[in-house]
């Protein structure tokens, strides 16, 4: 293969500059959002969920915010703009007009360890740019907000959806906040909130940092008031600088590992026999098992499990119902313990696995 030599005859001096390659950011790892392509759905595998409680996570890293139960559903779909495989879809289940202090929408919380370079809360606070693809059956101005962990600093913005049922690419640039407290720990660094409906208590001045949790401004569209309305979003990217660069597609494995820092679905309620490890009897109707996590988790996780007749088994020894309890935990592993209903010989051990197609077991360290 012939090589093409570049020299001053074919390429002007200074034609390629750092600013032309990248503006105030990195070539890789630009996107502060995890699962912005909506590819990972460990909990539900694409099934629709109608949240009944605030802070219900649906697709990985994206949670539902709601003041009243069962007004809208969320699900992973394959309705997408070019270049994407998945989106998150919201559907109005029961049209509702939000009261003054009520809101509906979804959010992603970004860990403080990943936002320390933004210098928020200092005079060096850096500008951020958010971009995403969106499609809605209802046109109008929609509210979005960036907030701190205490939700006493927020930057509400309106973005317009001009055509119904049509994918549109939106870009929002936000000047860094020089005030307020912004965590740079393994706590909440910042929160991105997309409003699908909000009462007057959440409406503040747009395009400015304010105190309190502003989610939009007067005149914004309350999508939740429209029966059977739909709203899709994908390609969510938050990056340093004033320019929205093309969406940073990561490998599925990379994106899954990032999600697993916050949630690991070990058994997903669709497979009868999933090995967990080995377990051993510790007397007093109890057995124990150590589980190592695939990645280091953000904090010691909660164990989320269900129970039912013989949902778990120590193969060939005993079956039992669950759920799991935990002790001796940290961010890398946990010891599960559970009641077996009968005393095992200390040290009696065997393969520990699920024993029912409905069994589920997960580790949760969400922000």
């Amino acid at each position, binding site marked *: 293969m012939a090589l093409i030599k570049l020299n001053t005859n074919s390429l002007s001096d200074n034609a390629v500059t750092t600013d032309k390659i990248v503006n105030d950011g990195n070539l890789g790892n630009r996107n502060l959002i995890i699962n912005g392509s909506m590819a990972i759905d460990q909990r539900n595998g694409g099934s629709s969920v109608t949240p*009944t*409680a*605030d*802070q*219900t996570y649906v697709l990985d890293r994206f949670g539902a915010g709601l003041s009243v139960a069962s007004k809208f559903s969320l699900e992973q779909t394959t309705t997408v703009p070019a270049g994407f495989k998945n989106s998150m879809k919201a559907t109005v289940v029961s049209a509702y007009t939000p009261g003054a202090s009520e809101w509906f929408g979804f959010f992603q919380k970004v860990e403080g360890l990943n936002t320390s370079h933004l210098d928020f809360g200092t005079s060096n606070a850096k500008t951020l740019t958010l971009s995403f693809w969106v499609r809605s059956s209802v046109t109008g101005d929609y509210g979005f907000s960036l907030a701190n962990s205490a939700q006493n600093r927020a930057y509400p913005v309106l973005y317009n959806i001009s055509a119904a049922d049509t994918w549109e690419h939106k870009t929002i640039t936000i000047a860094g906040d020089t005030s307020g407290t912004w965590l740079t720990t*393994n*706590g909440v660094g910042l929160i991105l909130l997309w409003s699908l409906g909000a009462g007057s208590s959440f409406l503040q001045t747009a395009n400015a940092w304010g105190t309190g949790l502003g989610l939009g401004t007067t005149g914004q569209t309350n999508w939740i008031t429209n029966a059977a309305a739909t709203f899709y979003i994908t390609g969510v990217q938050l990056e340093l600088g004033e320019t929205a660069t093309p969406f940073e597609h990561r490998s599925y494995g990379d994106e899954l590992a990032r999600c697993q820092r916050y949630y690991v679905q070990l058994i997903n309620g669709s497979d009868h026999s999933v090995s967990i490890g080995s377990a051993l009897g510790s007397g*007093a109707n*109890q057995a*124990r098992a150590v589980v190592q996590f695939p990645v280091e988790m*953000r*904090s*010691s*996780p*909660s*164990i*989320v*499990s*269900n*129970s039912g007749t013989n949902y778990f088994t120590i193969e060939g020894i005993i079956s039992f119902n669950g*759920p*799991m*309890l*935990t*002790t*001796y*935990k940290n961010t890398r592993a*946990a*010891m599960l*313990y559970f009641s077996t209903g009968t005393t095992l010989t200390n040290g009696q051990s065997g393969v520990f696995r699920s024993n029912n197609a409905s069994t589920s077991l997960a580790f*949760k*360290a*969400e*922000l």
Partner: protein
Amino acid sequence: MIITQAQYCSADGENNSCISAIINGEHHAVPLDPANSDYAEIMRQVEAGTLTIADAD
């Protein structure tokens, strides 16, 4: 976040090792770790007087 049936659990019968609770409809075993957001929310609701944690069996 809707939390019900909160109860301390003890692996050794002497020391509390986690809190068993139903959170948003799912059973959780929550570690006693302030960095865990479930534990932080349980403690916030206890502080607010809207949730009580039963002693371990």
